[in-house]
């Protein structure tokens, strides 16, 4: 590895006065799940959009003045759309700002962050939806779209203005980290949201069954003397939700599933043709309960890391498409919330910057084809949310990630861009590295090899 390698980031769009040069990639492995493309070729970006793509684009095919990049056979894919990102802004800016999250996203190949409404104040009205979008326009270097709160103050009682917030730019509605326990409230929300074709994203976990539980219920929890969370905390809530979807008909997305048993429930609902989709956190796909070791609080997550059997089932469900999307579940926490005994620590781990490379573990292990991984992190979430990105087709926004799928490196938390350093992958060996991230035709991250 060259020693003079130094990554650079772009700045927010409004500060860029010059017209952006066209960029031409050639000799890259084009992966576009939207049309099953996985072949060597080139891609031309102009005016913020993909102008041309295909095997016919070679080194001499680009217009004068374009930045021409010989990809060396590395992968060019649509940029990732991360459906679950907690930022600390507004309210917890010491943990993460939208600006710092966007730098982490750029370094991780994420071109669109879908931000959760769990901020202070909560994103539960038009003004807040508008506010975070303006903040993002002024400070972020990748795209941001907020999810609106499904209930006022995320309290699980009063419905919010789903229609108006949708018009203002909220791409989905969720109760964030908390489940809606009142079935009647959930039913009405699903019914009402249907009229606006709004998507409801739900953290399917019964808080009463979670109780004081802090990790997966089983032998490891018993040995550590920690209270367990049974798999049924998830299946009970998911089953209820899916029955309500059958009754009400609204579009429903289970934010992050963690257990093998929930997959059976989900499969049945999909086979019945219900409008349901599901996500999984990268943590639940690549780690299990044993990684908690001696009370590593950075691995205290919600839903919790489950057994290896659960993890393998999730990987299988991801490969066959039962699980639609992978999220980073990026959740910055700092010293005052994580440097406690395990049970007293907050849930959550950062993940924007390691999402893609951690997912590549499933490619290297032979469990999930690379094109399916890109599908689950870009094409599918874009389709579920109705975004234009997520494909390499000509005319689409030039939101792209260019990465070396094999480059080895070791995660050093101090080098990550997030303001918070609670990565579950500290000191982990990774294989694969983002070389360049492009948003709307502008390079927002460059690993600095060229």
């Amino acid at each position, binding site marked *: 590895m060259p020693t003079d390698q130094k990554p650079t980031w772009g700045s927010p769009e409004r500060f860029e006065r010059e017209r952006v040069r066209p960029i031409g990639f050639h000799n890259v492995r084009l992966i576009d799940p939207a049309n099953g493309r996985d072949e060597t070729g080139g891609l031309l970006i102009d005016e913020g959009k993909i102008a041309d793509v295909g095997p016919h684009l070679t080194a001499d095919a680009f217009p004068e003045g374009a930045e021409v990049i010989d990809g060396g056979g590395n992968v060019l894919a649509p940029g990732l759309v991360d459906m679950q990102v907690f930022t600390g802004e507004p309210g917890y800016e010491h943990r993460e700002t939208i600006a710092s999250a966007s730098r982490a996203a750029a370094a991780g190949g994420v071109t669109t962050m879908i931000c959760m409404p769990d901020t202070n104040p909560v994103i539960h009205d038009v003004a807040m939806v508008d506010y975070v979008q303006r903040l993002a326009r002024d400070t972020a270097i990748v795209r941001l779209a907020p999810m609106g709160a499904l209930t006022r103050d995320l309290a699980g009682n009063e419905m919010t203005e789903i229609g108006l917030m949708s018009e203002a730019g909220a791409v989905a509605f969720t109760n964030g980290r908390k489940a809606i326990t009142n079935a009647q409230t959930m039913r009405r929300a699903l019914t009402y949201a249907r009229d606006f074709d709004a998507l409801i994203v739900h953290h399917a976990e019964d808080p009463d069954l979670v109780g004081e539980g802090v990790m997966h219920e089983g032998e490891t929890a018993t040995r*550590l*003397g920690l209270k367990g969370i049974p798999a049924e905390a998830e299946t009970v809530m998911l089953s209820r939700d899916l029955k309500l979807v059958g009754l009400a008909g609204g579009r429903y997305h289970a934010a992050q599933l963690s257990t093998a048993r929930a997959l059976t429930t989900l499969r049945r609902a999909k086979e019945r043709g219900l409008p349901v989709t599901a996500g999984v956190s990268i943590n639940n796909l690549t780690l299990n309960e044993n990684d908690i070791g*001696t*009370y590593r609080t950075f691995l205290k997550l919600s839903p919790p890391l489950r057994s290896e059997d659960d993890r393998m089932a999730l990987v299988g469900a991801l490969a066959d498409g039962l699980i639609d999307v992978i999220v980073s579940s990026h959740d910055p926490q700092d010293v005052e919330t994580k440097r406690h005994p395990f049970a007293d620590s907050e849930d959550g781990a950062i993940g924007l910057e390691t999402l893609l490379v951690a997912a590549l573990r499933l490619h290297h292990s032979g469990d999930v084809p690379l094109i399916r991984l890109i599908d689950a992190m870009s094409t599918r979430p874009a389709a579920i949310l109705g975004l234009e990105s997520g494909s390499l087709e000509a005319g689409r926004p030039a939101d792209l990630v260019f990465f070396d799928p094999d480059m080895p490196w070791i995660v050093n938390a101090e080098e990550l861009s997030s303001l918070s350093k609670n990565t579950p992958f500290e000191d982990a060996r990774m294989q694969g590295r983002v070389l360049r991230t492009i948003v709307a035709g502008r390079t927002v991250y460059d690993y600095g090899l060229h």
Partner: protein
Amino acid sequence: MATLQDAPPISFPHRHLLGIDQLSPFDIDALLDLADGFVEINRRTEKKLATLRGRTQINLFFEASTRTQSSFELAGKRLGADVMNMSVGSSSVKKGETLLDTAMTLHAMHPDIIVVRHQSAGAVELLARKVGCSVVNAGDGAHEHPTQALLDALTIRRHKGRLQGLTVAICGDILHSRVARSNIGLLNAVGARVRVVAPSTLLPAAIDRLGVEVHGDIRSGIKDADVVMMLRLQRERMHGAFVPSVREYFHYYGLDAAKLTLAKPDALVMHPGPMNRGVEIASDVADGPQSVIREQVEMGVAVRMAVLEALASNLPNA
């Protein structure tokens, strides 16, 4: 000054005592042998030794415990250490100072040994990683209470002459009990057979994976047992949350004279204290001829002296 005669030179390859699971059967034997010697010294008039002279021991208790704290205090003082007790109510921790802030404050006082009790599993281990001295776990949440398991083992060994091959029934609130976890670990390590007896609401998941026989009925659970160890049921768990009532709990799971006849005639009755008479144990059994409950308290001081001495042998400039 008294001297410890025939004390075997102890080789104890640990800086901290955080749990039974870090100890080998040899470590356990060595600690029990050492403790045996201290039992004799504690029965003399002149009890004071000089092993820890000049050393500072801090007892840091985030959870109130009169007996464990006094036991550690006495153990430290009899070995000649300067002992300081710090009781940190959990309320003051909630006010903002984290466990690690407290650890840093103590660290600055240059103690040699810190004895810690905390209501959260793993808290003692977390603290041990941040201080430069030796740390003894005096109970962390529902995780471990290693000196209790050691004192129980010492009590049993002195009566039965051995631990290996004995059948020990641990009865009561296994779910919330660090005493149960440490005892299961120790007794398995030395080759005893362990049974646990509890209503299913007070059993943790997959407890059978820890190498115990699980009994829902105390009659089968203590049948032919060499030792019957009763656990305390916390008051807040008695009324409806885990068991419906004290009366029903005592009826099915409390140890009374009639049930005790099912165990071996010379079975020992133990309890880590403090007891709820008439809840998990009948008064006549607690005070009866088979009870060694008061002796457990005596063994507690000896075992804690052994632990402190063993750790002191690894302290810098020892």
